[in-house]
């Protein structure tokens, strides 16, 4: 769902909504993504904003344009999304966790132990 009041830009949220749909399997390869006008109508936003979000996915190879028809889910989109989000996890989310851990004087071993517990001892 779109949160108009969120800190995150709307066009980024739109890209994420599509990505989530792909991850969940609701949008499969070669399926047509919702159009900018559909987004505009449903969420009452400017179609250009929606277009910006969709274009990000096109640039990343997650969607591709079929002239005159719209945007479609590209081959291997799911894999690309997972890879992208893994990267973001390691580059953005994890460093924050480590920094906070350092601030709270949690040692590396304590951290590893907790992670092991949460992950179920893999």
């Amino acid at each position: 769902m779109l949160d108009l009041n969120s800190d995150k830009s709307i066009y980024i949220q739109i890209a994420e909504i599509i990505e989530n749909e792909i991850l969940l399997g609701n949008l499969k390869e070669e399926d047509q993504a919702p159009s900018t006008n559909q987004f505009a109508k449903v969420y009452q936003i400017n179609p250009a904003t929606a277009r910006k979000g969709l274009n990000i996915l096109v640039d990343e190879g997650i969607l591709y344009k079929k002239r005159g028809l719209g945007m479609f889910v590209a081959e291997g989109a799911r894999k690309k999304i997972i890879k992208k989000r893994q990267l973001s996890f390691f580059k953005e989310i994890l460093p924050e966790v480590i920094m906070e851990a350092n601030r709270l004087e949690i040692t590396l071993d304590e951290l590893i132990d907790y992670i092991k517990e949460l992950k179920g001892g893999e």
Partner: protein
Amino acid sequence: MLEIINLNKSYGKNKVLTDINLKIQENKIYGLLGRNGVGKTTLLSLISNQLLRSSGEIKLDGEEIFENSKAMEDICLVKDLPESLKERKVKDILALAGIMYKNWDEEYKNYLIKEFNLNVKKKLMKLSTGNKTILGLIIGLASRSRITIFDEQTLGLDAAMRYKFYNLLLEDFENNPRTIIISTHLIDEVANLFEEVIILNDERIALKDEVSVLKEKSYFLAGQEDLINRVIKAKRVIYKDKFGSKSIVGIYGDLTEDERNYIRTNNIEISNIPLQKLFVYLTENTVKGEFSNGFN
């Protein structure tokens, strides 16, 4: 494309607009924001030549629009109708609008009248405030003018009516794209309708930017004062305050990778500025002294 070049407007000794420069592109929805009385209506009245400018140029496709019949055919300004019309019937006013606007869509007008349930047989003065506004909205939408401007057209409308208008607007924009400029003070509702937003403050344009990037360009920074001062040196500061031992600033602009690293390593808290607050800060009256390095 509509170009406004060095536009100035004074009422006698009272300067309202100073050196306004704007480029308005085709088929975009623009928002014009600003405090009450800052000059939004003045600017829009100048663009539609209802008000005479003090100096400056306004060009459409390269041609000056003043007293230019061809250019004026493409511009429609919707604002409150003149008082002198109160005895006229709504259907007559709509008929006159239909005569004057060259792209007028009569069928669409009839559709809108039904949508809004407007009684066209009534005289203008017998309409409720909301219906007077709706009349203006219908004229603006049905005009299909290349440049359609809505000046504060929300008076008397409840939220349901406003959202109905936004829906109709987006729907028509999808099928019949045109340049739309909406001036309003209801920022929260409409910010997402706009592709670009223009903020008028202190006689000038305080900001003109894509709405989608506004959130990415506005930050609160909180931390030690001298640390923060180093980051904000060349930045546009729009807010400054103290909270305990912390200094809090609001800035508008891009942050480089280096600046982000600096912020992270020096434990400076960084968060987004909510749109509503952003607009409040940008439409504050000129702040002398502390923030003057942030404005033009």
